[in-house]
């Protein structure tokens, strides 16, 4: 029997984080975007222990300010891509607005830290969502193009191909055949 399980990373991560923090008896409040305010200051050892506990699950305690900002930018972008209202936000305006910095500044910090651009990241996220919509929601390309604010199906296909190197139809075909292979 086939099941599609969609999971919300945020829920899982928050729960795990909460668990681990509570294990260390740390009182905290969550500020969203992975930002945590600890009631008390943590010692270096405590910090190391926390890092050790969190690392098996890929958690990283980010101390660098810029990294924090980049993380926020990423989260904001993800939120933008994954919400369904078609208000045609221009992403630059949206980010500048949300994070209270000029887009130019955000762009620079992002490139500095990640060595890749915000635009690139946005495209990657959109294509990722397109993949999800294709596989799990089984939406058509036309529907996906509309939902993700592409000017046309051709535009979506071209971007898909440019990002992944294969056409959306080829992608779908391959994933299907992969699943059949695994049976």
């Amino acid at each position, binding site marked *: 029997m086939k099941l599609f399980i969609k999971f919300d*990373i945020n829920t899982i991560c928050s729960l795990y984080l909460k668990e681990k923090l509570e294990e260390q008896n740390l009182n905290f409040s969550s500020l969203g975007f992975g930002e945590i305010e600890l009631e008390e200051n943590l010692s270096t050892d405590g910090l190391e222990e926390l890092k050790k506990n969190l690392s098996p699950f*890929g958690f*990283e305690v980010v101390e660098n300010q810029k990294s924090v900002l980049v993380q926020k930018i*990423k989260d904001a972008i*993800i939120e933008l891509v994954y919400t369904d209202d078609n208000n045609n936000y221009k992403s630059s305006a949206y980010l500048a607005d949300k994070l209270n910095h000029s887009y130019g500044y955000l762009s620079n910090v992002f490139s500095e*830290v*990640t*060595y*890749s651009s915000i635009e*690139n*990241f946005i495209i*990657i*996220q959109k294509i*990722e969502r397109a*993949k*999800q919509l294709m*596989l799990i929601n089984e939406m058509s390309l036309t529907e996906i193009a509309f939902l993700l604010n592409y000017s046309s199906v051709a535009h979506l296909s071209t971007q898909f191909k440019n*990002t*992944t*190197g*294969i056409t959306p139809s*080829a*992608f779908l*075909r*391959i*994933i299907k*055949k*992969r699943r059949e*292979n695994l049976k």
Partner: protein
Amino acid sequence: MQKNALHILLADDDEDDRLFFKDAFEEVKVQTKVEFVFDGLQLMEHLHNPDTKLPDILFLDLNMPKKTGKECLIEIKKTDHLKNLIIAIYSTSSSDEDIEDTFIHGANIYIKKPSDFNALKKIINEVITLNWHYHTSGLNRDNFLLSLK
């Protein structure tokens, strides 16, 4: 960026290709650690070894003696502790059927060996960047497909 160096493993029997690869990785912005194996058997032995630290990305040549890249790919995907490896096929063929075939059998990335060194550098950059995004941004590894030919 990544605190730890990115761990890369290349399985290729050709000396020159390994040289190109090494040189290209040296010129990449990210910190990397590159290891080599020389054929399919050696690769599987290496991977099955419990002491081995698994690489972040495995670059796999298809035309290898003793055990072909495809055979290794299939075996890796069948092995529990290996099946989540990010695998990039690194090959001379550019036929769509071959590419699709490797994707179907579980490869995440397909790279056609370029005949220009700068092109190789560019490709490796793209792979690393994308891979990093997959690591850090919660993207679905099952849907990670990239074809560079």
